[in-house]
């Protein structure tokens, strides 16, 4: 199996299968021995012992969305940094200067978002 590219991932597949199997087995076991007496009052959603008011899919702060956008930008940056870091020993000074410029450009993006007040949670 040596030199076979997929071989290490086979063990991970085994891991996933056993993991899922274990969870499903416990759920199955629990289903066999637990009681089940649902009635309407019991299956109401929890809301401090009151009847729930309105829909549960409430409006929420759009800032969550903006943070997701910023995250995507900088996570892609991190993806670019990893291969660069692995090969850094062979790349030399030129690669360092290039990456500093890349990081500075993205850092300016963060500075811009900061000044726009996007990072401030009201």
């Amino acid at each position, binding site marked *: 199996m040596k030199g076979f590219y997929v071989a290490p991932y086979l063990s991970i597949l085994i891991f996933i299968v*056993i993991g899922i199997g274990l969870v499903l087995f416990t759920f199955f076991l629990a289903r066999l021995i637990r009681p089940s007496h649902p009635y309407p009052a019991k*299956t109401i959603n929890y809301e401090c012992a009151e009847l729930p008011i309105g829909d549960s899919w409430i409006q929420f702060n759009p800032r969550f969305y903006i943070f997701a956008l910023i995250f995507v930008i900088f996570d892609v940056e991190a993806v670019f940094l990893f291969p660069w870091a692995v*090969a850094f020993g062979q790349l030399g000074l030129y690669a360092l200067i290039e990456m500093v410029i890349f990081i500075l450009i993205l850092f300016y993006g963060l500075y811009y978002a900061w000044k726009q007040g996007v990072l401030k949670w009201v």
Partner: protein
Amino acid sequence: MILISSVKVIVVVVAVLTGCAWSTWLERKVVGHMQHRMGPTFAGPYGLLQPIADFIKLIFKEDIVPSGVERVAYGLAPVLSFIPAMLVFAVVPFAADATLFGHEIKMVISDLNIGILFVFAVTSLGVYGLVMAGWSSGSKYSLLGSLRASAQMISYEVSYGLSIVGIVLIANTLSLRELVEMQGSDSIWFFSNWFVFKQPLGFLLYLTCAIAETNRLPFDMPEAESELVAGYHTEYSSMRFATFFVSEYANMLAVSAVGATLFFGGWQGPYLPSIVWFILKVFCFMFFYIWLRGTFPRFRYDQLMSFGWKVLFPLALLNVIVTAAFVMLD
């Protein structure tokens, strides 16, 4: 090969689950003593059988599924948060290679050449479980908790990933096995090659982000019980709740194991067997987690977000550039 892998997987899964179970005991005991209480005492000596009692109680509980849930997502969510937490242990080397009946057995389930990348890819999948749980529960608390969880986890994800770029710069490899071997030393100062001394800032960043990633105090906004009841798992009961609970502890163990491997030499250490060193280092991390819980109050949400983006993220970038410059000069 498949047989050996399967045996290793089962041993590791059982070990991690046992670790999770008795981490709950450790947490209750340590926090109890920090607050001048005794913690669990009744089940067994020093309450050591408490996790078993908890398990038996939870498995006999009725599984109450509220009427407003989205069935498929509601059922999938616990599994989706449990599997990524466990999967980290597939690539963490937990002892030195051993020889058994003439066979050399690697003490790691899968020796990936992109080990670190795998760890970070898998841990970031954990957020899906929380989001699905909150979205499908049909409860306002759950929805708010899962929104907070996702925003918090993605905010700290970036710095979390960047915090270990420094190590990759020094070591020029992503393989966890090679990283551990690099940190070994035969001299009396056996810890002299640990990356924590070469990357102190990177370690602090890793530690802080790891706590936020696992939703532990002082960053436990997603399940802040005094404001959101229990956050994303408010509507879960019985074994489904137990799965969320276990996956939280599995996550803690995972970031502890990865932290010990990356910064404290993994299983490297003198005199004692390598597996003992590994467990000892993971235990120290776990104790630190619990200590934090016993000491710090919860952050405010805006403080948490601005801390992540305005302090940790610039520091992580700075750490990368400074490390690169130092490696260049060497």
